[in-house]
């Protein structure tokens, strides 16, 4: 599993929270803002800023959770996945 391009955001530890995003996407931006609002610790990667093999690896990782490889894709504790800016889905998965 790649950690390439991951950005760490500090906050309350509610488990391993990884957000696959695009730097240009409005819904990804809203998802980042929402996670910050919730005050949880998470890592994100802006997939469009990666090139070549790095981006390919991240795409593969996303597809394991979300075969359409759409953004944002949020993966919680390597167990659960929330696709899109789904506030209720995110709160349920994070149990906050």
């Amino acid at each position: 599993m790649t950690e390439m391009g991951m950005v760490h955001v500090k906050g309350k530890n509610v488990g391993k929270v990884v957000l696959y995003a695009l730097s240009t996407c409005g819904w990804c931006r809203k998802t980042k803002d929402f996670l910050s609002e919730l005050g949880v610790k998470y890592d994100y990667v802006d997939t469009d800023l990666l090139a070549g093999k790095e981006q390919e690896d991240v795409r593969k990782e996303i597809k394991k959770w979300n075969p359409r490889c759409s953004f944002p894709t949020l993966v919680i504790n390597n167990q659960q996945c929330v696709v899109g800016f789904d506030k209720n889905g995110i709160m349920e998965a994070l149990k906050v």
Partner: protein
Amino acid sequence: MSSKISDDAIVRRMEKLNKEAEEGGYHLHPDKEFVKNLTKGLLINEKRYGYMACPCRLASGKKEEDLDLICPCDYRDQDLAEYGACYCALYVDDDIKAGKKEAQPIPERRPPPEERRNAKQSMMTASRGETGLISLTYPVWRCKVCGYLCARESPPLVCPICRATKERFERFL
């Protein structure tokens, strides 16, 4: 790298997009800040790929594979009809524009790569078959963005309705 696009350039493009949208009967999202961020994304993509790929989708960087997601994308009008907003919510319907409804995130309509390849293949086979049956003075071309049809030797350089470029047209009849 994203900071290199000036505020001025973003505002100018926003105004252009808004003018073209309104002239064609479309509307941009009422939240100016939201539209500004998406416009910045479009300009970043234009710089990065050479075309305005959808800011909410990951482009391949190969234009022929990304044609369907050049903004306005091939899926905008279907999403506007079904959800009142396009995938990014850059384009919205009357109710959302008027603030009567809020744009919600919607599911991805763009088929995965394998399906897109298959659809392209069968489209080519179908149009070859049909042209043998109907004899037309001129071929009919269809804009994949807005559905505009025209009968002439080749598609227009730019769609007069939605301003999609020539390569977004397909042979319809």
